[in-house]
């Protein structure tokens, strides 16, 4: 089987690759969101702690 044949998916290329593409996108976004959120929360808490210290 050559690469073209593989990508062609027996004529169902659009359906197969769209499905796999959407799945990849959704699964990757679900990893990025909580990773970024954790950094944001920690930065937020650190900022508040510093402010509280400088005020007192």
């Amino acid at each position, binding site marked *: 089987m050559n690469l073209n044949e593989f990508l062609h*998916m027996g004529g169902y290329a659009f359906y197969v690759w*769209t499905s*796999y593409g959407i799945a990849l996108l959704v*699964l990757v976004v679900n990893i990025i969101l909580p*990773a970024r959120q*954790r950094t944001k929360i920690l930065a937020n*808490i650190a900022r508040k702690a510093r402010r509280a210290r400088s005020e007192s």
Partner: protein
Amino acid sequence: MIFSNFFHKMASPKHFYRIAGRLIPWLAGACLLLVLAGLYYGLLVAPPDYQQGDSYRIMFIHVPAAWMSLFIYVVMAGAGAIGLIWRIKLAEVITISSAPVGASFTFLALVTGSIWGKPMWGTWWVWDARLTSELILLFLYLGVIALHSAIEDRRMAARAVAILALVGVINIPIIHYSVEWWNTLHQGPTVTKFDKPSIHLSMLIPLLLMAVAFKLYYVFVVLMRARCEVLERERNTGWVRELAEEK
């Protein structure tokens, strides 16, 4: 003794946060390996279907995603019940952390099913029992997420969400048996039948690889989300402040 000690530690937010942080990279690595193996066997090794040609390869995403949509809902509602009855904070955290992952898998099951339906059934969508009940599942997940964000107090929100999730459990057997109870375009189960599964081994292997991979994916992503939720809940404690300032 060791076991009870382990559970006691896991129930403390600080230890949960630490242990989850250590587990996540291993689970993610194992998940990635299984996905790659599943893709290899599913896209390259398994032969085309004699009726559906290559379009059936959507199954390797669609079916595990649909299984996960049900599995995660049961975990979410189960953790919700544990949180309601025993007031275990960690159970509340798992309930709310599961909802976005479950919603994502439900969305994937619906979308890939629709994309598969177009060439096979000639339509993107029909209002039959299987598709409609799966759509209701998506709305249940979205309802859980919306309800949680609408209530300020996190513990109160967790309780409300658990009750909503438990009421929605009624939908789970409806989805599962919908293809048997009603006439539908959707095919019946081929793997979870009690007699021999009517699927060839070359197709069953990638299907199971992807199913295990998705399960691992859920575990590590729910742990990532749970860590965020723990940080939010414990933001005024000493250990979280120390952790934040270390960075």
